[in-house]
């Protein structure tokens, strides 16, 4: 399996990158860590003749308590003890991504925008051709839920849920300038496994911004997968909250790895503020989250099982966050 030739561009600024993308409209991909994109290219998945490498753009690097550059390597976050202490939930998630080798290349932005996954999509050209292709690449129908309209590929990033529960914003640059939007607004709830974000064509993720309220929360991330490393999430549950004694001040839950986009369950958790959280109430919330997600059979573990573990992981993640020491 070889990589087809492509033209590599190495812009030095965000503006130059965006301009290139606009000139090469539809003919290019941004290249961050490449740990997901290049294997997909080897499988001839939605190849573009131009790649715009982002690694020479200083503005995209670096991290602080307030800002994570989109091109910051996951390993850089892991290696910063002060960051780890301030954001235990992000840290949990970063440490669960793939393997140390992948984290040495993989980036914050790459993980937030990682391609959705599906048994029928993440296959070689030969494999897909033998089946007749699918909606998400080269074909016109979905094999998971047979129809021709919607792609059910699964969102498989670990970082997004852990940032969603901290009310993170993202900064985006495009042909018409820069804008900032909540991370929750980045993922397109009206979209599908193909139209998965609200990024406009050519728009580039510049940074993640963390509000002051994000620091010092009790937070954690639980990931379901067959093996304790390497594997993409079959389910990811992130929680973050504040407690005053036993009383909940705020609590957020986000779930990834079970649908085409990660999402928060504020309607379930907002009413919990201001009172102690009983085991019964926690159980109800966990069940509601479970009932709220609809995984399909396009990953290794069966959808019914993944849903069932949602309930267990939500309960455990909340309990562990509550009992864990505040940062």
């Amino acid at each position: 399996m070889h990589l087809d030739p492509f033209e590599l561009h190495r812009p030095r600024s965000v503006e130059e990158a965006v301009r290139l993308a606009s000139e090469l409209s539809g003919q290019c991909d941004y290249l961050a860590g490449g740990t997901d994109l290049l294997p997909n290219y080897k499988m001839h998945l939605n190849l573009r003749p131009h790649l715009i490498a982002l690694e020479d753009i200083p503005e995209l690097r670096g991290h602080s308590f307030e800002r994570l550059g989109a091109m910051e390597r996951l390993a850089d976050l892991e290696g910063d003890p002060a960051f780890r202490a301030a954001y235990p939930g992000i840290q949990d998630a970063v440490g669960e991504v793939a393997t140390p080798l992948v984290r040495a290349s993989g980036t914050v932005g790459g993980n937030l925008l990682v391609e959705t996954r599906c048994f029928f999509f993440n296959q070689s050209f030969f494999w897909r051709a033998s089946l007749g292709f699918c909606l998400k690449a080269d074909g016109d129908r979905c094999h998971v839920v047979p129809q021709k309209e919607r792609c059910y590929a699964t969102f498989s990033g670990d970082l997004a849920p852990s940032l969603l529960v901290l009310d993170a914003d993202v900064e985006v640059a495009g042909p018409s300038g820069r804008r900032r939007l909540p991370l929750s607004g980045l993922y397109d709830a009206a979209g599908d496994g193909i139209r998965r974000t609200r990024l406009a064509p050519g728009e580039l993720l510049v940074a993640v911004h963390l509000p002051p309220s994000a620091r010092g929360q009790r937070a954690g991330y639980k990931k379901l997968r067959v093996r304790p490393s390497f594997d993409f999430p079959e389910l990811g549950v992130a929680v973050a909250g504040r407690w005053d004694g036993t009383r909940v001040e705020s609590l957020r839950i986000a779930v990834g790895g079970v649908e085409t986009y990660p999402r928060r369950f504020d309607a379930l958790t907002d009413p919990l503020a201001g009172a102690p959280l009983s085991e019964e109430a926690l159980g109800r919330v966990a069940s509601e989250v479970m009932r709220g997600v609809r995984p399909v059979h396009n990953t290794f573990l069966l959808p019914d099982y993944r849903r069932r573990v949602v309930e267990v992981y939500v309960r455990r993640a909340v309990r562990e966050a509550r009992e864990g020491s505040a940062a």
Partner: protein
Amino acid sequence: MASAPTPPTNPYRLLGGRIPYVEGPLKVTGRAEYTDDIQRPGLLVGRLLRSPWPHARLRSIDVAAARALPGVYAVLTGDRYPIPFGVLPITHDETAIAVDASRYIGDIIAAVAARDEPTAEAALALIRVDAEPLAEHADPRMGTSKVTDPIHAKGLAGTNIQKEVVQHFGDVDAAFARARFTARVRGTFAGVTHAFTEPMATIAEATPDGRLTVWSATQVPHYLHRTLSEVLGIPMHRIRVIKPEVGGGFGGKSDPLPHEIVCAALAIETGRPVKILFDREEVFYTNHGRHPTQNEVRVAADAEGNLLAYDIEALIDGGAWSSFGTVTTYYNGVLAMGPYRVPNFRYKGRRVYTTKPPSGAMRAHGGTNIRYSIEVALDRIAEESGIDPFDLRERNALAPNSTTVNRFEITSTSFLECLSAVRKASDWDRKFRQLPYGRGIGLGCGFYISGSNSPIHFTPKMPQSTVHLKVDMDGGIAVHSMQADIGQGSNTLLAAIVAEVLGVDLERVHVQRVDSDVSPVDLGSYSSRVTFMMGNAARSAAEQLKGELITAAAGLLGTPPEEVMVGHECFETRGPPPASVPFLEVLHRAMEAKGALTASGSYQTRPKGGTFKGAKAGTAPAYSFAAYVAEVSVDVETGEYRVRKVWAGFDCGRPLNRLAVEGQIEGSIHMGLGQVMGESMNYRGSRLFNPSLLEYKIPMPQQMPEVEILLVGKDDPEGPFGAKEAGEGPLIATLPAVGNALYDAVGVRFTDLPITPDKVLRGIDRRVAERRAWKGA
């Protein structure tokens, strides 16, 4: 990973110790030469067009456009080399390239040699195949009766049955009629594959002197040699097969494989060297892994727990070809004959062709799936009868120097010692059924052949292994043999045996790369035969050299030869007065009359087994024995579990290289855990959904339990220096030990492998729904 220290009674200088691999420094520095590392001038790239259909008649293949593409040197289709082959002489049903029909997704239907990979792939895309879809046969159950479009014309009476074995010893029905306890287990086993590190790779070059040289990542250079000759129509002496370093095989490189023949054919067609290197997906399609299997085991025992009978059925999903399948079909029955006495035995096994990648031999071939079901059935008998699982097995253990009902000769066995060692080390008597809910401990046992008594060979009278030695005046000892080191350490053992016998340092001994022009035939790395057979051949060759050297030393020392002993890098006499001469001096004296010293040693098994049909299957010059205990902890809310520790009691006779034996046992446990915990060839219909190492779930290092190895074997009378096999037997017991430990943990019998967390949770649900309490839960 702990191990008992080398016993102080070890009479040997090197053997019995911990000997690092002789090629280790080259491997860990990246200097070892694997097939893909070999450079040849003008090397072309060979690529294969693979069938996108599970089953199709190939009406015509138009290769004109591919041939016309600049940079393409040859395009081959199946009609050019249509002679059928197969590893077993009785089942030649493969061709190098599909001739009339393609039989699984991934089957080879054309081949291209081109200047580079993109050109080769572009050429493949230009090949037009006119194919007519034929009936897909994914389910082996459906293949047992008459089918439309059978996969091979040879299938039994219009069915897809490739092989049927029926055996009956004693009177099973009468035994069941008088049994006090019976147990029935129905097991389902997903196919698993070897997942070795190095993908298949072959380079071939035809030269103007009329010779063909083939370098290939193979476990059995000799069978490749024979098959190339048969299919290409070239006498063996004009073909040279070279085996470079091989990055693992586990059985997956033991068949002669179609791409090896195709590569040679492309080299002949083009007159240029050609390389075929597989990507991982192609490795998955080539498969030859462990067969998907359904079996049913019934066990009968009397009131004291004495085993009375086994009644076994197995339905084995063979995939598209026979491969080793006839052997597999026998092994699924006869490898139930140990490590216990079974006076009455009935077996019906069927291997059925399906339109899937072929299954074949994989580490602990034929012995793994049936063993799981038997050991679970024994656990049930133990539970029903109230007899401790250890006591039950002790009571039924085959004795040394006994014969099984199907005439296997058991010579050495330390099975009882395996049992008592792991019972004590694991603290079994304080843990079994006494750990809290969710924690469990389980016992699984096994045995395996130490080489096959009836190998695939030209004639049964030829030796199974031959080793040549040559020493010249430099004092280095060159060792030639076609034994195939694929990472298991056979080169190291070969060197160590020679060095041990001659008293020299290991660095004097140079094991030469396998090269059919100079290496005498050894049948290669399969059926756990190498240490036993090559070891005996090497010892015999070294003893001959020693004889010559002792004669020379006697002359130098002025003593009769009977008084000369091998020292360390010298020859000695006790005297009086004691004296010694250095090795080199003795060597040079011995060379005076004849030049370089050479010796040839060989080994052949003695005839064994009965005379009934299939009597030779599973006969071996010796057998290894195992008793393993596994301890697990289960997350009862999610079904996720961990294997915390495995105690591995193993009888490989005398372990000759403890480092290698421990590596084999640890690796076997890892591989066995893979089949228990998550590895499976995931098919929907005939389509493999996970042909990648991301979705084929080999356990990660974090999943590896602590392993305590207890080597308790005693010297085998026929094994070299008392040794028996340690390459396959150590896998088998892993699976039932974990399965029985899960039962102890949560009270559910799991008989559908792999046991993934969703199945564990479903099992617990079922138990709860049945209101069956377990350990207070």
